[in-house]
C-alpha cells in the first residue's frame, strides 16, 4: 500500500464520512432531546431527495436552489410527524405507562409507510438529476476531489457548528437543551415541552432537507435509498454517541475513513462487516459512544 493510495483513501473517507455525519445529525439531535430513535430517518432523506428531483425535473430548478423548498417542507413534515404521531405516545408515557420501544415501533411504522408510499407514488425506477452545469472536480496533489461531494462535506461541518451555536445561544436552543436534560423540570419552569419536541423533530428533519438537496446531484434516487442511509446513520450516531452533535460528525468520519482504508486491504464487503462489528462492540462496551458522556 503506497502512501499516495493511502492518502487518497483517507481523503475519500473524510469526504464520505462527513456526508454520513451530516445526514446523521438530525437522528442524533432528535434522540438527544426526545429519546426517540427515529427508524424512519432514512425515509425522510429519501423523500427530500425526491423533492429535489421533482423540482428539477418538473420546473428545471437547480438542485442546490431546491434546498429552499426542501428545508421548510421537511421541517413541516417532521413537525407534523412529531405532533400527530409521536406526541400522543409521549403524553401516554407521562401517564406512567412506559413502553420504551413504542417510539421505535411507531417510527418503524412511519418508515414502512413512507418507503412504500414512495414506491407506490414514484414507482421503483431509479432517478437521477443532472445539474445544468458541471461542478468541477478539484485535483489536490494528484487526488481528484469531487466538487459536489466537497460542498456536501463542508456543509456537514457548517451545519453541525451552526446547530451547536444555536443550541447554546438562542432562547429556543436553550429551551431545547433544558428539555433534553429534564423534561419535567423544563415543563415546570414554563417551557412548552410539546412545542420544543415538535421543533426539534422538525429541525432534525430539515437538516435532511438540506442534505437531500446537497447530495441529490450525485446520488441515484430510488425508494430504497432511504434504508441504506438509515442504517449507516444508526451506525454513525451510535459510534459518535447518541444525542451528540459533534459526535455525529466524528462518528461519520471514523466510519468513512475506516471503511475507505480497510477496503484497500480487504474487500469492501468485509470492510462493511467490519463497521458493523465495530458498531456492536461500541454498543456493548461503550454505549455512550466516542464523544458521549458516560
Amino acid at each position: 500500500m503506497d502512501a499516495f493510495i493511502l492518502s487518497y483513501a483517507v481523503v475519500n473517507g473524510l469526504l464520505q464520512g462527513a456526508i454520513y455525519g451530516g445526514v446523521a445529525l438530525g437522528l442524533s439531535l432528535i434522540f438527544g432531546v426526545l429519546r426517540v430513535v427515529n427508524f424512519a430517518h432514512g425515509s425522510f432523506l429519501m423523500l427530500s431527495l425526491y423533492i429535489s428531483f421533482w423540482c428539477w425535473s418538473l420546473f428545471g430548478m437547480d438542485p442546490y436552489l431546491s434546498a429552499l423548498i426542501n428545508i421548510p417542507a421537511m421541517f413541516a413534515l417532521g413537525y407534523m410527524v412529531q405532533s400527530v404521531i409521536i406526541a400522543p405516545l409521549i403524553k401516554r408515557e407521562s401517564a406512567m405507562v412506559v413502553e420504551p420501544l413504542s417510539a421505535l415501533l411507531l417510527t418503524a411504522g412511519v418508515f414502512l409507510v413512507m418507503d412504500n408510499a414512495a414506491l407506490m407514488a414514484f414507482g421503483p425506477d431509479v432517478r437521477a438529476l443532472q445539474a445544468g452545469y458541471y461542478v468541477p472536480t478539484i485535483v489536490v496533489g494528484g487526488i481528484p476531489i469531487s466538487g459536489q461531494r466537497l460542498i456536501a462535506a463542508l456543509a456537514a461541518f457548517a451545519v453541525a457548528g451552526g446547530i451547536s451555536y444555536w443550541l447554546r445561544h438562542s432562547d429556543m436552543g436553550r429551551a431545547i437543551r433544558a428539555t433534553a436534560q429534564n423534561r419535567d423540570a423544563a415543563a415546570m419552569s414554563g417551557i412548552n415541552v410539546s412545542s420544543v419536541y415538535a421543533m426539534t423533530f422538525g429541525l432534525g428533519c430539515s437538516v435532511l432537507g438540506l442534505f437531500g438537496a446537497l447530495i441529490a446531484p450525485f446520488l441515484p434516487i430510488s425508494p430504497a435509498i432511504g434504508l441504506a442511509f438509515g442504517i449507516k446513520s444508526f451506525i454513525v450516531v451510535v459510534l459518535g454517541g447518541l444525542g451528540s452533535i459533534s459526535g455525529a460528525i466524528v462518528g461519520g468520519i471514523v466510519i468513512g475513513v475506516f471503511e475507505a482504508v480497510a477496503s484497500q486491504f480487504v474487500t469492501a464487503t468485509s470492510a462493511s462487516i467490519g463497521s458493523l462489528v465495530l458498531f456492536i462492540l461500541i454498543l456493548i462496551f461503550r454505549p455512550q459512544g466516542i464523544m458521549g458522556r458516560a
Partner: protein
Amino acid sequence: MKTTIAAKSTRSGGLRLNQTTVLVTILLVLALAPIVVTDSFTLHSMIMVLFFAYMATSWNFVCGYVGQLSLGHAMFNGMGGYVSVLMFTQLGLSPWLGMLFGGVLAMVTAVLIGLPTFRLKGPYFTLTMIAFAEIVRIWIENTNEFAGIPLKGAEGLIVPNRGDDFWAFQFSTKLPYYYIILSFLAVALVATAWMERSKLGFCLKAIRGDRDAAEALGVNPTFYTSLAFAISAFMTAIGGSFYAQFFRYINPERSMGLELSIDMAVMSIIGGQGTVLGPLLGAAILTPIAEIARGEFGGGLLGLHLVVYGLALMLCVLYFPKGAIEPIRKLCLRYFGGNER
C-alpha cells in the same frame, strides 16, 4: 362438539381453561380445514399463514414476553434452513434430523449473542440484533465456500428433488406440508401457553416490568432471557428448515434478511405480543392482506400491503398497545362472561 367444550369451560369458569379451550378449538378447526379446502392454491396460502404464525409465535416466545424488540430473528431462520439443507446435500442426512442440528446451532448462537446484548435496553438491543443478523447475511452472501462447505453465497441453496419421500421431507402434494406446519405451530403454541404459566413466564414478565425489582426477587435476568432466547431461536430455526423444504430453495437475502425479521415482529406486535394467541391472530390478519393486495392489484399498487402494515403498526402502538387480541378478548368477555382468558 365444539360448543359443548366451550359451554363446559364457561360453567367451570376456570381461569386458564378458557385459553386452552380457544387454543384447542382453533387447532381442531385448522386440522379439519383441509376437508373443505381442496384447492391447492388456497392450501398453499394457508400454509403460508401458518408458517408466519409459527414464526411470529417463535419470536413472541422471547421478545413478546421479555419486552425486547429483536429485528434479527431471521438469522436463526437462515441457520435452520442452511444447516438442514447442507446436511442433506452434503451428508445425506434426513432434514428431520438436520433441522435439529440447525436448531442447536441457532440455540448456541442465541446464547453467545444474548449474553452481552440482553443487557442493552430498548433501541440499543434492537440495533445490535439488526447488526448481528446483517453480519451473518452479508457474510453468507459473500462466501461461496467455507471450510469445505459450499455455502454458494448469494446464489442460495437448492434442495434436490427426491419426489415423495418422507425421510427427505419432500412431498408431491401440499397436504403433508400443511399438517407438518400445523403440528409445529401447535407445539409452539402449547409451549408458549405452558411457558406463560411456568416459572420462566413469570420471570420473563417480571424482567419486562422492572429489571431491578425482578433481580431483587431472585430472578437472574441473564439466565432466563438466554434460556427463552435459546428456545425461541431453536423454534425459529426449525421454521427455517420447513421453509427450505417447502420451497426447496433458500437464499440469504430472503431467509436472513431484515424484511423477514420485520414481518415476524410486526405480526406479533399487531396481533398482541406477550400473549399466546396474539401472534397467530397477527399472522392471520396480515398475511392475507399481502396476498390480497398482490392478487387484486397485481403490480398496480406496489408496496400497498406494506403501507397497510405500517399504518396498522402505528395504530396498534398508539391505540391498542396490547395488540388486536385485546379488543377481541374484551368482546369475548362481554358475550361469554367468565374470567379473563
